[in-house]
């Protein structure tokens, strides 16, 4: 699994993270972990639930050089036959999407009665 590098504007507003499944937004739960510049875990940055799809990460200056890991599950709806799903992780600043990606680690596929775990690591740089 490789880590994505995302550049945010140093002069812009706070950065937030949005995680949703395209067809059923309420079917994703995730934890966002924050790591320092040396990849040491600092703690959870926030949780993604069906009520909270967007997690604030912080001001550009405070997250410059930090890494994040989105670790979540796609919740099954007991579909039979299995249906396709696609998780989209977006980084937002000043009300617009800076970066959107489908995690390579089980970010898309088919889901039936078992939950599917997905993960998406990224590092933030200011520019």
């Amino acid at each position, binding site marked *: *699994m490789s880590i994505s590098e995302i550049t945010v504007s140093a002069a812009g507003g706070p950065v937030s993270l949005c995680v949703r499944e395209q067809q059923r937004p309420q079917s994703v*739960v995730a*934890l966002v972990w924050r790591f320092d510049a040396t990849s040491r*875990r600092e703690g959870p940055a926030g949780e993604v*639930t069906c009520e909270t799809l967007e997690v604030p990460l912080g001001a550009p200056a405070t997250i410059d050089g930090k890494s994040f*890991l989105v*670790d979540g599950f796609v919740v099954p709806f007991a579909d039979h036959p299995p249906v396709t799903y696609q998780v989209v992780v977006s980084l937002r600043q000043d009300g617009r999407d800076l970066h959107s990606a489908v995690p390579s680690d089980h970010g898309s596929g088919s889901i039936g009665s078992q939950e599917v775990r997905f993960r998406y690591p990224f590092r933030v740089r200011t520019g």
Partner: protein
Amino acid sequence: MDPGGLGATLAVLLAASLVTERLVTMLKTAFPRLLADERRTGAREIDLVADRPRRLMVQGMAFAAAWFTAAILAAGGGPLGGDSFFASVRAGERLIPAPVVALLASGGSAFWTQLVQWAGAGRDRAVTRRAVEELEFRRVAQSLGLPPAECGRAGRRAEAQLADHRAFLLQRLRAIAPQSPVPAAERLP
């Protein structure tokens, strides 16, 4: 006092009161500006002084209607004459003068009005409750990605199970606490 006789008296008075109420309502409908429109102040509150003539008129008409009803009851099915208005109404074992019946029955107008308002409020509550249940029903259906016809009790149960499952998965994630942003394959607890 004989309870049976009291029941008959109350029945006569209630019946007369109901008839009176209906007669007054008909008159208010026929002459709304004169009898139904309450006089209000600039602050939209009832002006008791300015509204006094109208109230007296309505109460007078209620008494007249009740007296007319009492006279019919006193006539006992016979022809209605002038003396019927001062005859007595049989209420069980009692004989009550028609003017007294009129006085007692006309005072029940406010009671019936209140009763109708309560019934209306109860009906409005039932309508609101049904509307709220309908909206909740559709919300559950939408959250499950199902048409409303396929939901109902099963849908509500499925929604609760889904919420439990989400909470359980979130708990598992909290317990993992990865050591690096690019974790190796880890065994879930």
